[in-house]
């Protein structure tokens, strides 16, 4: 295989999509929280929890779609916890988020061990299988690259237009964005800011938790330690990269995933000439570069990180 061939191989593009899917869930989930004005650093832990919960559901003979719902529910509970701390009590979003991450990831490993005290190699489940989209999957190249994926991958892609519609075309989306821009304005129109923010954090956390579950019930078939491996933090960066816009989040996730898929293949191509760590580093290095470029015209939600108390500043 040669360098050019790599980019025109259907396998490369299919891998890109597979790597991007959990990032899309995570990024959209985080984006929903941040649009309402709440940074959710609990994402890394919530994704770990989702990965464990989803996998465990299937391992206990639950259905695959049931596992998705279960993961969302577990994520929502941790989101609610974060919302109580940051929205209702107005505590530091950073501290609460990191606390949630530590709690949720430790708890998921702990529960995993509780249920499976004796297994040394992680047991396996039967994950989602690829579904060929009729007709489209028969297309040469495109079919293999884009139309032969698991249902959860399609769900990730469908999430983007849904998020765009909800945020920009519905009253609740407008209220959510306003909660992140100027909560006082929301209050002045008789809408409960705390409720909107809580709702956004709960829904966002549920979505990111599903992103975690993707890894154990769609991409792989087992849960193991260090599963999420910083994907949550990547999502935090992707939200900024996307300037808090869902469409750009898709682009960012695909870009990062593409680099990741590339580095795996580049390691093989380069053989021993270049240390493989160099390629491992590539996606992160380029992400940092992209962030530096994009940061110049960034428009933060104006009330991000700012707690809201009724009666303040009105």
């Amino acid at each position, binding site marked *: 295989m040669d360098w050019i061939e790599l980019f025109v191989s259907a396998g490369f593009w299919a891998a890109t999509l597979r790597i991007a899917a959990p990032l899309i869930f995570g990024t959209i989930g985080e984006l929903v929280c941040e649009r309402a004005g709440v940074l959710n650093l609990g994402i890394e832990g919530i994704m770990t929890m989702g990965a464990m919960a989803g996998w465990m559901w299937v391992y206990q003979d639950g259905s695959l779609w049931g596992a998705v719902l279960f993961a969302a529910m577990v994520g929502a509970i941790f989101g609610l916890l974060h919302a109580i701390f940051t929205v209702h009590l107005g505590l530091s979003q950073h501290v609460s988020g990191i606390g949630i991450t530590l709690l949720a990831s430790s708890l998921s490993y702990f529960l995993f061990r509780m249920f499976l005290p004796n297994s040394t190699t992680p047991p396996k489940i039967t994950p989602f299988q690829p579904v060929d989209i009729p007709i489209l999957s028969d297309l040469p190249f495109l079919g293999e690259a884009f139309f032969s994926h698991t249902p959860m991958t399609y769900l990730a892609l469908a999430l983007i237009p849904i998020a765009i519609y909800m945020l920009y075309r519905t009253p609740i989306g407008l209220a959510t964005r306003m909660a992140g821009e100027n909560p006082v304005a929301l209050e002045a*129109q008789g809408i409960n800011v705390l409720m909107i923010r809580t709702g956004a954090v709960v829904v966002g956390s549920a979505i990111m938790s599903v992103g975690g579950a993707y890894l154990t019930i769609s991409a792989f078939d087992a849960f193991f330690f260090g599963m999420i491996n910083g994907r949550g933090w990547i999502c935090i960066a992707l939200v900024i990269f996307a300037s808090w816009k869902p469409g750009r989040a898709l682009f960012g996730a695909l870009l990062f995933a593409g680099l990741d898929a590339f580095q795996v293949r580049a390691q093989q191509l380069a053989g021993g000439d270049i240390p493989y760590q160099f390629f491992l580093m590539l996606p992160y290095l380029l992400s940092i570069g992209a962030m530096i470029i994009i940061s110049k015209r960034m428009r933060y939600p*104006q009330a991000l990180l700012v707690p809201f108390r009724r009666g303040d500043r009105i």
Partner: protein
Amino acid sequence: MANLKISNITKRFGSLTANDDISLRVDEGEVVALLGENGAGKTTLMNILFGHYVADEGNIEIDGERLVPGSTDAAIKAGLGMVHQHFTLAENMSVLENIMLGTESLWSLKSTVGRSRRKLENLSKEYSLQVNPDAGISELSVGERQRVEILKVLYRGAKILILDEPTAVLTPAETGQLLENLKMMVTSGMSIIFISHKLHEVLEISDRVSVLRHGAMVGEIATKDADKAILAEMMVGRKVTRPKAEKLEPGASIVELKNITVTGAGKAADLLNDISLEIRQNEIVAIAGVAGNGQRELAELLSGLRSWDKGEFRYKGEIVSRANASEFLRMGFGRIPEDRHHTGTVGEMSVWENLVSENLRQDPYWKFGKFIDFDANRKKAAELIKQFDIRCSSMETPARLLSGGNMQKLILARTLTADPNFVLANQPVRGLDEGAIAFVHEQLLAARTKGAGILLISEDLDEIFSIADRVCVIYHGRISQLLEVRKTNIQQIGAMMGGDMKAVA
């Protein structure tokens, strides 16, 4: 249409009674002005009316029906509409989005953007409040933003419009436009509560004036029976006279700016463009203008906090080569910053620490030039507290607990005790009550008599015309030529503040 009846409202915050047994009636098609100084309880009363606070006692009726306390939603549904003093708009969103917020059921699956846009366009035609529905709020001027706020209220079908200090941020021309618009709304049957402390506006627009002082309603008067003097006395509770400047011959040049330019970041317009200005001994030069036209940059420049890109800066005839705040202080610059809470004082530090904070490393307050001499500093602070009548429970009190007037006295004491040659007074009386305003003006005039040159940055033309000797207008980073205050008038300066620099005679 609607009438509003507020009966016996009392609201306490801890030991402070912000509203004490207040009653107020507004009839259909009537404009009632609510007059009072800062802290008199006007905003608290309106926040109760609008459901942001719940009153401890009393109740509110609209058209004979009791308003549910503590519910903004109920207030809006009953026909109340409030234009807040600080706009409640999201800068990153469009006009239409800001207006549509809260007008539809949160759970409906689709926003009716098209219908809302038509409704907005009709409203803006009906009340001649022009605005582009798709413009981002950040692109709009302050006057336009206020138009959006008013449209937002009209859009929700308000019958009783409450305007909290609506003209605080407007130029005189924009104010005139606003008052015209309001009169038109009244003729179509709307009622208005106009909150202000500007007497001439109150006299122009209202039918009736209610005056609040220290949280209590002190009187009500039909506007046709009132004049400025009567209202001022009702508002303050005694006759106040602001000091007037006596004529003094200006002396030698203190600060001279020649063609100073401060460029903006990136492609932004110059923050200060070719500014030339001279301040001499024994005179007060005023810079009039609406906030955000370069005043902050000019103030930073003269405090040594900002450097300049082009031009010449002279102090007593000597060229100043670079901006350096502590160097400026040593040379004899004094400054009264615009924001007394954030840049004027350190809130968590005690009154005495704040009082001596500009004497760093000066004898005799420092031992060996390195260590604080607590006794000497406290002694000096005690003198200043007495001399400037700073009311605080002790000099160890954190500065943030002082009232606005006392905080300003602290800053004045610190600045003027050093006998500065030049004083930068940036909005020195903003938000102060009449008594404190008179005190600040007296102190500035005393410094002028002693020989200081003073630059007064102000939006308040009454202030400028009572104490300044010369005045110029700042607009979009440029300044007009200096005019003798005696030879100009408020209308002319007002027109120039709106950008009509040709009004210069």
